[in-house]
């Protein structure tokens, strides 16, 4: 009895300490990302976008070497992408925990991690597409990073389609965990394959590395903000789902 109690105490549950800071984290994240947004335009200096070789038609006009304003998207694109990876890894971690213990709570955690990941993956795709449109002059190209991200997004969507197609909670949890483990392995392979196989069709995109101090500062502010937003959303959603589950359990108890 005490053993089960001790195990239950260690499980994530609504009302534990992270719930108290979650709303504040969300608020702080919102403030920081707003500050970051302003910094991107007023603090970080203009940077040459992707190297324009000669003259190219971008956005309907001829461009030689231009200080592209679209580079500002980078300050949001990269932090959002990193948070999406982090929440995917988080969801994968809980999926493995679930397979090891068969504890439904971990499945809830994994599912909510995936939800947050989907949100950030979609944000990454949208910002990425806007950037691609103005830097490379196309909405879409089958470039390794884009391809991998598209596949990643499809897998995350497939995860939720699968969940909605199964009724029994145990079976749904197991299948969902298995799919997230496969996805976790598949996505890096996808990146490697699309990157390593040479293709004459894709333009090789060269970008000079390194960021200046003001750029790094802006990215750091947005990154911190996005991490807080991700964490806050996760925790609030977790609380909501857990409370709903507990209400359901109570209803069932009352009916008996």
């Amino acid at each position, binding site marked *: 009895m005490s053993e089960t109690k001790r195990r239950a105490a260690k499980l994530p549950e609504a009302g534990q300490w992270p719930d108290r800071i979650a709303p504040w984290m969300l608020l702080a994240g919102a403030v920081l990302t707003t500050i970051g947004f302003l910094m991107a335009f007023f603090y970080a200096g203009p940077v040459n976008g992707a190297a324009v070789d000669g003259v190219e038609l971008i956005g309907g006009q001829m461009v030689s070497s231009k200080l592209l304003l679209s580079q500002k998207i980078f300050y949001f694109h990269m932090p959002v992408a990193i948070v999406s990876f982090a929440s995917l890894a988080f969801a994968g971690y809980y999926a493995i925990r679930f*397979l090891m213990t068969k504890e439904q709570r971990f499945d809830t955690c994994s599912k909510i991690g995936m939800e947050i990941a989907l949100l950030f993956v979609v944000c990454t795709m949208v910002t990425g597409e806007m950037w691609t449109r103005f830097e490379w002059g196309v909405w879409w190209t089958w470039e390794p990073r884009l*391809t991998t991200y598209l596949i990643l997004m499809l*897998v995350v969507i497939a995860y939720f389609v*699968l969940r909605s197609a*199964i009724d029994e909670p145990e079976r749904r949890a*197991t299948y969902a965990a298995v799919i997230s*483990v*496969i996805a976790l392995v598949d996505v890096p392979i996808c990146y490697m*394959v699309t990157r*390593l196989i040479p293709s004459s069709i894709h333009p090789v995109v060269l970008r000079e590395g390194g960021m200046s101090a003001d750029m790094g500062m802006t990215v750091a502010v947005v990154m911190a903000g996005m991490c807080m937003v991700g964490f806050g959303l996760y925790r609030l959603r977790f609380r909501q789902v857990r409370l709903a589950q507990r209400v359901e359990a109570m209803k069932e108890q009352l009916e008996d």
Partner: protein
Amino acid sequence: MASGKGVDVRTAGGVALRKPSTFQQYKTLLRKDLEQEFRTKEMLTSMGIYALLVLIVYGAALGQTAQALDVLQVAGGLLWALIVFTSLLGLNRSFGHEKEQGCLEGILLVPLDRSVVFLAKATSNLLFLLAVEVISVPLFYFFFLTSVSPSESFGLIVAPLFVGTVGMAGIGTLLSTITVNTRGKDVMLAVLFVPLIFPLLYACASATTAVVVGSDGYLDVFFQSLVLAGGYDVIMLLLGWVLYDFVISA
């Protein structure tokens, strides 16, 4: 234990039993699938006809442009599209009848390692897919490539076909075990299968195109793609082997 005829076991009551080896279990499961297929010919006919129909659709799609378009460049990709759609159909079927006739429950009652079920099922799926490819690839050649003369290296196409089919059968077996228990299983399998198979598809299409076109330095691309596809196969088969126990017991 996997080497020979199994081991003799004597129970407490003094009854002599022969515990079959893992390899014997594998052979029995595989033979069951093959016999069932030889009697009903359900999967092979449906997959074969479907492949032929996809080829006819290709005919309509390419009919307008065949003169101007370099068919060789797209042939590899089209061939893989054909294989993906055909294998989707077959994989959907492979667990369907097990489920309908309650065969899966019978298998699960037998005290055997669940990964043997995975390997046997993946092997039978692999054999069916290869059988369909043996018919559909020559047909593809006959319909689309006789007029454009592919390079002499065309024979090497066998390697990516085999490597790709192994991977598809492996991951497809795992996924079809999952989707057979879901609502709308046909669509569900496609939704999971196509994104997860994408790296393999990409590598195999690249290797196939390299040998069909046969331009300069094609062997480098061919081997690199093939190694990547092989790596995908190894990782995904191992992963399937590990995860299958969870999937089939759920």
